[in-house]
């Protein structure tokens, strides 16, 4: 790090380049596969140069005109469902977490610490543990195959509440007192001062929660049975036929690439905010 020696520099680059290759190669193969025909892919060895069917495959995937024997639902619609789900989850989580952290930090009410710990304890429970009862509740409320069923159970978030709580605790008390003297009531203080101060944290959380929502697999697998409500991640799974039936791997790969684009865009576009939100605080 501090030393400047050419051999070390070369070694460092070799390690880094190897790392990039290990991570990037599967992505490249996915892309290459998405530009070939189904027949070309199953040849061994498969060609590692891009084929000539790029536009054809992607159009087929987006419009659901593939010839596969499993699901052929249009990916365009799935992307839309994934986008709506991910956005609702991200914004829902942020809104609920901001409010509950605000209540826990700034209000004195009976059993305050009990509620805090109740939220905190759910941090330790993975979704899989409570998936059975949650499914029962959602099913009996008739929320299967609906946006509500896809999003509501995933909105409550202990992690985000905890993060905002920690941030609120660092806001100086004098700021609260100055607002009180200025005549700002609790919600006014929340809206005018706390939320604007939290923008970087909110942005960071948005990135995390958007990707979390987009990549949901287990939960949508349970609550969607109708092709019209498949998020794209489930769509990929449904496109792969089991047994001896042929799978349109070119279309599956095109779908996989399409599914990667929105989260990647969110990360790239919000990178600056993301790092800022996790690293520094404006006070």
């Amino acid at each position, binding site marked *: 790090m501090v030393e400047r020696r050419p051999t070390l520099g070369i070694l460092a680059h070799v390690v880094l380049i190897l790392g990039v290759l290990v991570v990037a190669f599967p992505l490249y193969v996915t892309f290459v596969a998405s530009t070939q025909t189904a027949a070309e892919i199953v040849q061994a060895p498969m060609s590692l140069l891009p084929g000539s069917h790029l536009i054809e495959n992607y159009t087929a995937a987006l419009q659901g005109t593939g010839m596969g024997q499993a699901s052929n639902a249009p990916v365009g619609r799935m992307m839309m469902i994934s986008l709506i789900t991910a956005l609702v989850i991200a914004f829902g989580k942020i809104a609920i977490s901001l409010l509950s952290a605000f209540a826990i930090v700034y209000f004195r009410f009976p059993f305050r610490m009990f509620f805090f710990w109740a939220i905190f304890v759910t941090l330790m429970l993975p979704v899989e543990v409570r998936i059975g009862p949650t499914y029962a509740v959602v099913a009996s409320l008739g929320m299967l195959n609906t946006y509500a069923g896809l999003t509501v159970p995933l909105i409550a978030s202990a992690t985000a509440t905890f993060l905002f709580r920690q941030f609120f605790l660092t806001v100086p008390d004098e700021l609260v007192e100055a607002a009180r003297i200025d005549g700002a009531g609790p919600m006014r203080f929340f809206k*005018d*001062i706390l939320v604007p101060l939290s923008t970087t944290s909110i942005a960071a959380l948005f990135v995390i929660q958007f990707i979390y929502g987009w990549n949901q697999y287990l939960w949508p697998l349970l609550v969607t049975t109708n092709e019209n409500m498949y998020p794209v991640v489930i769509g990929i799974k449904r496109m792969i036929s089991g047994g001896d039936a042929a799978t349109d791997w070119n279309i599956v790969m095109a779908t996989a690439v399409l599914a990667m684009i929105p989260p990647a865009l969110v990360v790239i576009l919000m990178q600056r905010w993301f790092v800022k939100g996790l690293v520094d605080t404006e006070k």
Partner: protein
Amino acid sequence: MGAISIRKVEKRYGHGPKANAVIHGVNAEIADGEFVVIVGPSGCGKSTLLRMVAGLEEISGGEIAISGRVVNDTEPSERDIAMVFQNYALYPHMSVFENMAYGLKIAKVPLAEIQQRVDKAAKILELGQFLQRKPRELSGGQRQRVAMGRAIVRQPQVFLFDEPLSNLDAKLRAQTRLEIQKLHKELGVTSLFVTHDQVEAMTLAERMIVMNAGRMEQIGTPEEVYHRPATTFVAGFIGSPPMNLIKGQADGSRFIVDGQTLPLPGAAPRSGELILGLRPEHASLRPAGNLGWQLKVEMLEMLGAERLVYCSAGSVLFTVRVEATLVPPKIGDIVTLQAAPDQLHWFDVATTQRIA
């Protein structure tokens, strides 16, 4: 208008027998337009008292009235006060203008009037060119002025200052002190100013309240507090270096300390055990053998315009301040200390109250 009455005010944290009392029955009447400084060591309750006036702390006992209206249960925003905090407490995401206008905006003051009031305050404080900046783009002194501007635009009956100068460097502090004084002259608003710095207290105060351990030790003009400290605490706290306080037996015009007899320039107010106080600047040193106390010079400190001479007589230590232009005694010399009789302060040993 703008008068503050503090009547038997108490502050306790917790309830019942476990309650922790931090302020024990403070009484003070502050007239309209007066500049009163509350001074005391850290933890004496001075900030708590100010925050009770502001409404940021609940009042556990007694009552506080502002402009003749008891405000014990009134929200801070309805007490007609404005407060300047030690760390300024500016809203970091708002511009200077928005910071100053926020309170007025909430009070639904018309926009034109907000503009006019902020402009006026900005003019007084010379902040005009910074109105669109964010607090983080300002220096400490400028932030301090914005905090004052935020107080001024509210046009309150009372200004409350909670150690507003302690985050500034020494030069800026002196400058801001003068500005606050000037501002007070211009606006004539009742001000309550908390500080632990006795120089600030002496220079700013029309009257000062000296507090210690949750009790008010003395309230009076700086002259009164300096010349006639009410207790040994005030005597030791106000004045730098602090007043020499010596416990001994008074007997007519003799004062006996640890078996040594020191002659007094006049008779003690009464006989028996007393504490004698003498300010370092009110004593003068003569060559040995003159009439007075014979002391041995232990140490010298040069402060520029003056010199501190630390002397001893047996177990008694004594500080004397002399002009730096005078030829100083040498360490180990014996010198005579003299003082005028009216410069001696006498305190009761048990109550620490002033006798004469």
